[in-house]
């Protein structure tokens, strides 16, 4: 599907001299085509708009990514490498329904800026050059003003959502592109209505790092996905760590109680006992022989380099120990 999209878009996108307004006109033509094709549905107004925007988003985003791929083919070692994260970004974009046609417009304008400024593309680090940031801001505001008329035409959309989504997508697409072209210049796209001084940008970068790591933690800690919001998640994580620590304490208490068996086991493990009795397979099945991974001490014997006996030896020694334990009555509970 992408290959089909690349060829017609090639003609319009390959020339980098197009001005912003020309591109907007092209977009509008696209959208009108889409509206015509989808106007035959009987769905209500809102659903139609949503469908239209979603498909529009799809096509235009894919076209922009294909364009990035074209850019990257001259530079990049691996076109698939740049495509991976961009696909992810695309998924992220599609899931945001309120991000309308502002996204491709922004990326278009962004691409334009890049061509003019020798393709300096931003990523999420802290080094900034203030002059270029201000320029970008101005162009971003211009694009937004120009496209605002379109968005008013299309329907209701919250401005902040748009800017957020657009800045996110621009950052993400640029991140995907920056993997294709590795450059030194680092720009940070600022959102409309937010301060652009150094501190708040640094703050925002830091917060995004932290939220990324919180997401990773969320995957690890079980039962953390239901709670939303950073405070609740942090509480869950703290509870989980506390519970793990109390578990360690509890198990160490148990081990202290079972001290004698522990001694025997350690003694048997670290001094190679000879094979005693391998002719009673039934007992080996019954006794829980230190099951680490259902192979238990077999793994340990593999790791221990000094041990040269066969694999049968440790299991047999466990077997003898445990049998002796069963014979003696209440050895475990006296300590």
């Amino acid at each position, binding site marked *: 599907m992408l290959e089909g999209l690349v060829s017609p878009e090639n003609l319009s996108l390959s020339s980098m001299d197009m001005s912003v307004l020309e591109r907007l006109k092209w977009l509008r033509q696209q959208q009108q085509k889409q509206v015509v094709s989808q106007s035959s549905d009987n769905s209500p107004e809102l659903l139609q708009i949503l469908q239209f925007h979603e498909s529009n988003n799809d096509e235009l985003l894919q076209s922009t990514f294909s364009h990035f791929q074209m850019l990257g083919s001259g530079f990049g070692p691996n076109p698939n490498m740049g495509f991976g994260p961009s696909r992810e970004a695309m998924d992220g974009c599609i899931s945001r329904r309120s991000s309308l046609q502002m996204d491709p417009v922004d990326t278009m304008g962004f691409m334009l800026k890049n061509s003019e400024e020798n393709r300096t593309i931003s990523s999420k680090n802290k080094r900034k050059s203030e002059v270029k940031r201000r320029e970008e801001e101005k162009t971003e505001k211009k694009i937004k003003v120009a496209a605002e008329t379109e968005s008013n035409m299309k329907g209701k959309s919250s401005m902040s959502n748009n800017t957020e989504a657009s800045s996110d997508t621009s950052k993400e697409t640029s991140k995907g592109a920056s993997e294709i072209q590795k450059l030194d210049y680092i720009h940070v796209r600022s959102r409309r209505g937010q301060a652009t001084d150094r501190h708040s940008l640094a703050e925002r970068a830091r917060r995004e790092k932290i939220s990324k790591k919180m997401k990773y933690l969320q995957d690890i800690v079980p039962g953390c996905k239901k709670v939303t919001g950073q405070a609740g998640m942090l509480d869950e994580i*703290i509870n989980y760590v506390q519970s793990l620590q109390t578990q*360690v304490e509890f198990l*160490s208490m*148990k081990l202290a109680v079972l001290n004698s068996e522990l001694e025997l086991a350690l003694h048997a493990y670290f001094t190679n006992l000879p094979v005693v009795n391998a002719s009673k397979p039934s007992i080996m099945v019954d006794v829980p022989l*230190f099951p680490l991974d259902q192979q238990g001490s077999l793994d340990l014997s593999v790791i221990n380099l000094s041990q040269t006996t066969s694999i049968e030896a440790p299991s047999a020694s466990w077997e003898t120990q445990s049998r002796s334990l069963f014979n003696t009555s209440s050895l475990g509970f006296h300590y």
Partner: protein
Amino acid sequence: MASAYNPIYTDVPEKDVFALHFLQTLSNLRTQNSFSSPDNKTSDRVKKIKKAAYVSMARAAGATNRLWSRSLLHQAAKRNNKNVRFLRRKRRVTWLMRRRSNRGDPIEDVAAERLRNLVPGGGGMETSKLMEETAHYIKCLSMQVKVMQCLVDGLSPK
């Protein structure tokens, strides 16, 4: 889902590495004379076993690569001697506290403080680094718990 995109290095070795380290530490404990005598109180033995568990976990998880393991080992070693390292740590903490108070997020800081108290070596870290350490610490702790559980299950009489 996020495994390909993971920016944090939290690879934890297999269960057997943890088990090996734990058993080694326990056998070292066993060779101490005061440990196996029956007139020893259980609480002391519990403490020693617990400390052995943590130390072995820190060693198994890559001792000097991670901050929490490093501080754990320092704590364990210096508990016998005086806490010389503690002073240095305090100075570092005050510097970082000043820096953090400039741009602190009130929502995060309360919970982050609690987390710092829980995770060893968390006092002198920024929040993002703290998250990484917590993730690795959680993975190692869960592995250690599994190993100890297997040990207890294997040794307890039916």
